[in-house]
């Protein structure tokens, strides 16, 4: 069992690794849940989160945002961060995935040994999608 470290590693689907402050990383709900010692995900012991739906370029921007968010958390009139229009859509999907998806999962689902949080997130995503028949599932395998 590793001690929780100050820095954690985020891994994109094309293998880029970003080491960022744990505090900043935990701004994203999904990452926070994944690293939560109570949830017992594998990520917690490895201090490493695989994000198989996010590529390196987008993840870099995500990390930038996390630090931006952390820096400005308490200030009032925050100037907006620059978002390159070409990344916008991918980033939006990534943001949706990182922020909200996992908060919908009940904690019981999360404690399956060996499973990673992002697996669970994906599973839940696809079930809700199938149920709603809103659109074709987009989760890559």
């Amino acid at each position, binding site marked *: 069992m590793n001690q929780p470290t100050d820095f954690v590693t985020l891994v994109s689907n094309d293998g880029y690794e970003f080491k960022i402050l744990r505090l900043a990383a935990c701004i994203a709900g999904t990452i926070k849940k994944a690293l939560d010692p109570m949830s017992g995900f594998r990520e917690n012991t490895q201090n490493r989160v695989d994000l198989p739906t996010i590529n390196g370029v987008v993840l870099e921007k*995500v990390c930038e*945002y996390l630090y*931006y*968010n952390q820096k*400005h*958390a*308490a*200030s*009032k*009139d*925050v100037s*907006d*961060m620059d*978002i390159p*229009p070409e990344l*916008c*859509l991918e*980033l*939006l*999907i*990534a*943001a*949706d995935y*990182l*922020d909200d998806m996992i908060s919908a999962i009940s904690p019981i689902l999360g404690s399956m040994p060996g499973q990673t949080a992002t697996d669970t997130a994906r599973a839940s995503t696809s079930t809700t999608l199938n149920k*709603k*028949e*809103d*659109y*074709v599932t*987009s989760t890559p395998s």
Partner: protein
Amino acid sequence: MSGRRGRGANTGGANPPPPAPARGGRGGRGGRGGAAGIRGPHSALTDFLAANNISAQEIRDSYQQRVQQAEREAAEAAANGEGPSNDVEEDLQAESSAMAAERSKKKRKRDQDEAIAKIKKGREAKKKASKKKKGSDDDSDFDDVLDMVKKAPPIPGQLKYCEICEKRFTVTPYSKAGPEGGLLCAPCGKDMAKDLKAEAKAKKPVVRKGRRKLESNRLDGMLQRGPKTLQQLCIETLAKHSEDIDELGEMPEGIMKRISEIFSKKRAMNSTTMKLFLQPDMDTVAIHEAAYLETEDYDQIFAVCPTVKKVSLRNCCQFKDSNIDYMIEKGKHLRDIQLLGANLVANDKWIELFIARGQDLRSLKVEWLDAAFDDQAVEALSTFCPNLERLKIERCKRLGVDSIDAIARMEHLQHLTLRFYCEIPHERLIHLITSVGANLRTLCLEHFLDAEDEPNDDVLDAIHNTCTKLRKFRFTENNECSDEGYVRLFTDWSNPPLYYADVNSTRDLDNTNPDGPDEAVGLTSAGFSALMAHSGARLEFLDISSCRHISHQTFVDIFDGAKQYPHLAEINVSFCPVVDTQIVAGIFRSCPSIRKVVTFGCFQVEDVRVPRGIVLIGAPRAGDQLEQFGEGEVVEREGMGGVGGRVVPVMG
């Protein structure tokens, strides 16, 4: 001006070199100027040197000083018993000190340069340095240097070469320092000052920018503290580049909805962008601002999404008969239809639509229709669409009393919202309420007046007796029902507590008698107390704006801080003149989940400390206080979910 005058005087040679104390040696060649301005003969060299602002006297003085110093030091060394053995060293020392004195001028300038460079560096370092390091030695050093330089004014009267234009000029106390540390002549100094000013202006953060946006967001009831969410940022960027998007791809529905909303708000919803939101398997198409869409675009909706169940088009001005035909043909799954401002649809087409959708139609919302849609259409609706659960008809000019009777036959109605232009006799309205009221969960009756009858409270009594399932109740713009009627309505009502109560503008409208008649008209103190007693426990939204006769004491009693309204999130007390700072503060205390307080026209609301997470809008006297966020706990920002299914304004 002063500079020029000084220069003129100088070139005239009227400025004598400072009188030097006669210290023996070679006597005063031109040394003794004195007050009379009489002086001895000058050598050509002295004249030349004087013209170049070099004083022979000064050179002499400094030489003598050096010699004296050397002597003094030698004497000191001898006194220390170091003997003549280290003569050489002494000489060296003397020489070096002399040289030092000689170079002192140059050095001073260099030092100044260095100091300025240091300051510049220091400023940068300061910017970078974290707060922890503040107060370290480095910084204080820099500060000292900064002080030193600032305090040393240019010595006036000397001639210098301007650092920029290299012209000679007389230094005055107002001479500016150049970028390299030298001095500047008056014109260059002015230019420099101008540049500096411009720079300072550019550097100053523009505080007012975005203030209007901020206010606008506040009016929409949105708080923005800290950074926006990444989603929000992305959506805003998307809206900025709405024209360049080829395809949105597969988006979660919630995000799709928000993008659509913000596009509508920014009037970016046109033929091109609308297609981004059409996907074959969608079951809801909601376009909140369809004014830019053309007739063909509406057909697109049903061509692309044949399985759509719910269609909501606001301001669909170009929605025509042909679109209705196409909708009937393609949209076989339609259950909910909302068309606002569809004035190009003929009466018969509406009837055709109702016949076609028939049993399936669950919900119909129409507003702002004045050319067509008359009583016959409503008649057809009630005949052919018996399963209608939700009906909203507002501001349709051609509707009359017959429509009310037709609606009274819709047994399955659960949500009913009506706003008619014409007057409806009380008995028809009461008939409607007694017919369908028992199942209603939403009842909104706006502006239902009857000038024919004597004003009475029968409508309210009918609601009291019939409706027992209401959750949302709106009864507005009424100057007929008395306070007593409201008291009777809310007292011992077998209806469960409301979550949404809107009784705004129920007051007497006589301008000549602003205080109202003796017998209170509209919701006043007693009625308001009864309302809060009945629904306070569950109430989430309360609108009592323009209920002018509610007393101050009533407000104080209801929002006393001890009584709690745990769910109340939004309250509108606009144009209740008695509302003051104390009452607003009481609202903050009594409503732990309050998020928005509207106080337009409440002139007694001043200097409110608005706790965090609450937005106070409208208060005309509160001024900048509105910007102030109180001390309260940091409230977790919740998702901006809508209350009661209303369309929530979007940021951007």
